[in-house]
């Protein structure tokens, strides 16, 4: 494969399939792959090798925690108690010097408290000041329109996204790049769809490929369009919040329709600095609902309450369920 004809190296293609490329490169690779049969073949070869390796499954018959580990756990939990009871000399020393210890402890507490406060404040300041205000619009744009289309499509499996309407973000907001046939709408959201109090609300690196089903395209997408229009109009966050509240009050903005959901299965997305590509998942939207109705955030539950609209002006509850594969069928990292 000549690099003159291919803007990406073979190793980069492999790294893309492994989910190891940064968003910009991943988008470029995805965009090239869609048009390059040679790279598609190489990708299929790599996937074939992985599939063949998976034939080697190793199963263990053991269940439960073995006795040796149980014993070690028991020992670990008994040690502190034993030390207290079985060491009179130490106990005496501790008791006789209790004021020394109390003084030392107070100093340590104050020092630790100060350190934690300062560290935490510094960390929060670092994050909040990194994206304190809106960057220039250019930084939120994807210059290559085909790359944005490919990235938007990567939100859902091809069987869905190939027939979906595709929106791309431009100077005037979102515009239709390709008309769809199945009622789904795929697009790449930007950072301002984060919660209003998010430290990354203005992070220009954020690229979130999403593919709304018809119900969500009718009832959730208008919110993305509205927020984006307000951003481009340059109005303040407080005004945006008021406007969204008013939009729901006067029914200009609809509540989530029954069955509204969204595919977020792109391996090339960048959700934020903390999550990166995150894991492929599906999102389900409801008018405000108690999270317990879905068993969200309970131990071992795969359902999580998404904080996107929590405590925000939108009366929407959003649940997230991770899935095992990216939209291209490759396996996702184990959570």
């Amino acid at each position: 494969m000549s690099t003159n004809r291919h803007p990406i190296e073979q190793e980069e293609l492999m790294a893309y399939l492994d989910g190891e490329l940064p968003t910009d490169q991943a988008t470029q690779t995805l965009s090239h792959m869609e048009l390059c049969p040679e790279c598609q073949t190489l990708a299929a070869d790599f996937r074939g090798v992985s599939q063949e390796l998976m034939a080697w499954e190793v199963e263990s018959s053991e269940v439960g925690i073995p006795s040796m580990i149980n014993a070690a756990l028991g020992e670990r939990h008994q040690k502190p108690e034993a030390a207290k009871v079985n060491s009179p000399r130490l106990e005496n020393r501790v008791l006789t010097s209790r004021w020394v210890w109390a003084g030392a402890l107070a100093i340590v507490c104050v020092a630790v408290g100060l350190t934690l406060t300062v560290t935490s404040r510094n960390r929060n300041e670092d994050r909040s000041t990194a994206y304190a205000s809106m960057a220039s619009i250019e930084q939120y744009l994807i210059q290559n329109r085909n790359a944005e289309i490919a990235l938007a499509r990567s939100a859902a499996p091809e069987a869905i996204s190939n027939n979906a309407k595709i929106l791309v973000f431009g100077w005037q907001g979102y515009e239709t790049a390709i008309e769809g046939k199945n009622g789904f709408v795929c697009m790449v959201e930007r950072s301002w769809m984060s919660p209003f109090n998010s430290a990354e609300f203005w992070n220009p690196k954020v690229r979130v490929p999403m593919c709304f089903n018809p119900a969500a395209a009718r009832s959730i997408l208008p919110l993305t369009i509205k927020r984006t229009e307000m951003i481009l109009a340059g109005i303040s966050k407080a005004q945006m919040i008021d406007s969204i509240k008013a939009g729901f009050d006067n029914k200009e903005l609809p509540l989530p329709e029954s069955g509204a959901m969204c595919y977020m299965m792109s391996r090339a997305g960048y959700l934020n600095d903390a999550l990166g590509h995150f894991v492929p998942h599906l999102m389900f939207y409801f008018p405000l609902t108690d999270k317990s109705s879905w068993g969200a955030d309970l131990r071992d539950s795969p359902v999580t309450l998404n904080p996107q609209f929590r405590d925000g002006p939108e009366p929407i509850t959003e649940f997230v369920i991770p899935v095992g594969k990216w939209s291209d069928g490759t396996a996702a990292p184990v959570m």
Partner: protein
Amino acid sequence: MTSDEALMLEFQGGSRAAFEELFARYRKPLYGFFGRRLNNPERAEDLTQETFLAVIRAASRYEPRASVRTYLYGIALKLLAAERRKLLISGALGRSVPEAKTDGTPECVLWVRQALEKLDAPEREILMLREYEQLSYSDIAELLRIPLNTVRSRLFRSRLALKSYLESEAKTNPDLRASAEQPRPGRRGMQ
């Protein structure tokens, strides 16, 4: 879902339930790690337990600098290296080293094992850490103490080599290829 790192910190703080959850998450993956590298189920079981025992013993010193996943496989790699040294010494002293068990192993698995054995050891390890343990390039680089680019280039070479071995085997034994291509539940990796 509670993250591994949060569970580890809870365990450090004394929560047995947090350890049990970590054990449930990593027991099978660790068993698979040792099982594929030693081909000896008994030792794989022992070393899986030893990995968790090491976690219990070192819990107070754990610092969340790396992911728990990387931390566990770091311990597992050290135990594996020690096991291999023991096997080498046993071999050098003329003691019998247990043969890899192949009874009842499907042919397609034997075929994959043979193909992997043909790779250079460092490349094989990187490939296995990526494919079976699902570690990221940076995790592998950290565990093996090699540059990230080296991980990527070796992984690339090993995948191409493996593809070539598997293709040549398929030409000489087409029936085997067909059996290896049957879909299996629970597959992971680059699919």
